[in-house]
């Protein structure tokens, strides 16, 4: 009864400490000046941008910039921060999070709980996790470790040529490490490119003498040999390296939710209000699903803007102000040696009803896919100017015929088929 009398002060507990958690904590503080907010993070350092760790490895951002959310950021918002604390279980009936810090148990009571634990790299039997030489690239600790190993004359093998794999390779090469990337698919950057775009990206990267990318190949076994690691490929070849980075994909960190009744289908199933199937437990970020804003289907869209938006929406709902999240479309953008690559929407869509419009020149490759005359995806290599304009058309379902009549659409080579800016041709 006492608790009811004091119901105005509630305890919001957030597990995880990246963008979804930080956005949620910030929004919660804005909405509830009096409530208690607790963040449980399993890393040693306060929040930082996980997307930046590969740039940190390559020396493109400094440590100060990476770790900008110092502990005073939390103090200024009166947020209780538990670092190096790992959540091990949730007692739904008693509303307690069981956590562990330096081997000691910690029980934290919650009124509302936000799961924002993100995801971690996948390791398999062919390349099991080994802290001395077979690692992933996901956290600040990973980046620090690779930074310490990355010396001139060393050699690294990266398994998987997705966004993380290639960005890690790019960072390691900048440190003078010889890098070999092995990819199972015939394209680099996974599902965001087609063969032509992949060829351009690969050509640009392997122009650097330290970097090699091998496609259509995979790793079947890895073992330690003296101070190095030996990797055996599917095609029978063997190669030795000083360390191995696995970047074949990620899995959501959901193990501590077992037995709570939260519905998990590899990732946490949430509704439009970011609620899980258990009362007062919410989820946001890479750990849960989100909607495809155009088709309305549930997809796994683990990108920065989605995590930030989900964190904000979850905070509103945790404060008793219902809000829904409409979702986003899959998209990503990256830069290698001043060649920008942007992919928006369902780039891999295929079928009879798909129409393709592309533009190809020596330096530019752009492709738009239309379904029933409406753009559903855009991919650009070399010149990505105005990608946001076409994203507007994809999200707003503007018919292509209508879109190409707009003045702003003329910025895109795929629309005017001239390549450079139309101004050069007309003005």
């Amino acid at each position, binding site marked *: 009864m006492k608790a009811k009398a004091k119901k105005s002060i509630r305890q919001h507990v957030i597990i995880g400490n990246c963008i979804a958690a930080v956005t949620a904590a910030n929004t919660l503080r804005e909405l509830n000046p009096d409530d208690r907010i607790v963040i449980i993070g399993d890393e040693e350092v306060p929040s930082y941008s996980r*997307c930046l760790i590969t740039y940190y490895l390559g020396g493109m951002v400094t440590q100060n910039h990476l770790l900008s959310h110092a502990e005073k950021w939390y103090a200024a918002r009166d947020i209780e921060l538990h670092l190096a604390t790992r959540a091990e279980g949730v007692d739904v009936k008693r509303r307690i999070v069981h956590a562990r810090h330096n081997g000691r148990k910690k029980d934290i009571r919650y009124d509302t709980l936000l799961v924002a634990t993100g995801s971690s790299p996948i390791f398999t039997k062919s390349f099991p996790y080994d802290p001395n030489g077979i690692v992933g690239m996901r956290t600040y600790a990973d980046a620090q470790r690779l930074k310490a190993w990355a010396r001139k004359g060393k050699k690294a093998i990266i398994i998987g040529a997705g966004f993380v794999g290639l960005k890690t390779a790019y960072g390691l090469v900048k440190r003078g490490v010889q890098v070999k990337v092995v990819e199972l698919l015939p394209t680099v950057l996974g599902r965001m490119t087609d063969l032509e775009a992949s060829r351009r990206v690969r050509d640009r990267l392997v122009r650097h003498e330290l970097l090699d990318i091998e496609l259509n190949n995979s790793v079947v076994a890895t073992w330690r040999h003296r101070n190095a690691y030996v990797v055996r490929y599917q095609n029978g070849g063997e190669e030795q390296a000083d360390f191995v980075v696995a970047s074949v994909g990620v899995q959501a960190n959901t193990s501590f939710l077992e037995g709570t009744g939260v519905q998990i289908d590899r990732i946490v199933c949430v509704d439009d209000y970011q609620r899980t199937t258990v009362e007062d437990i919410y989820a946001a970020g890479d750990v849960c699903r989100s909607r495809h804003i155009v088709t309305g289907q549930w997809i796994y869209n683990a990108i920065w803007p989605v995590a930030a938006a989900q964190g904000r929406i979850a905070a509103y709902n945790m404060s008793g102000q219902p809000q829904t999240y409409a979702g986003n479309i899959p998209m990503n953008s990256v830069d290698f040696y001043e060649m920008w690559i942007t992919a928006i929407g369902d780039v891999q869509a295929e079928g009879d009803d798909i129409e393709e419009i592309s533009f190809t020149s020596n330096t530019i490759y752009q492709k738009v896919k239309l379904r029933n005359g409406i753009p559903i995806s855009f991919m650009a290599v070399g010149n990505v100017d105005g*990608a*946001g304009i076409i994203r507007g058309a994809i999200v707003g379902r503007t018919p292509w015929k209508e879109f190409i009549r707009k003045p702003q659409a003329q910025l895109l080579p795929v629309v005017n088929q001239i390549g450079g800016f139309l101004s050069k041709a007309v003005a």
Partner: protein
Amino acid sequence: MKAFVFRPDKCDVCRECEVACTAACSTAPRDSARYAPFIKVYQSPQGPFLRLCKHCEDTPCVDACIGESLQRGPDGIIVQDEKRCVGCFMCNMVCPHGAIKTVMGLEKAFKCTLVCGDGDHPACVAACDRDALQFDDFSTTVKRRRTRKIQGIVKK
């Protein structure tokens, strides 16, 4: 909060704004100044198109920025910390105005941060003698747009 308003029907693509932007930025105490102009007018058969950061009310670029380089400043202007930019171009991918600019030789994104004219009288607006470009209070521009919409001058 103020915002840019462009009226394509009044613009004759004289490019005075581009010249003024370059001139103003070159004297501004910022590193980015030498990469101006941040305003660009394109002539297309469908009419002129202005490429310029509008400092929108909802900020997709700030939400998408992985390095916290783009931030909403205290006076409502979206400012950029170049040291934090890693050139991923996530901002370009979500910007509905195509306002993000590449500069050859630098792996960074650049945009208008209103360094000129005390942030109140931008050089490009001052240079426009046909009233095609205006910088007004946000609510005023919305009201004006609404009136024009009722009058049937613009579609949206």
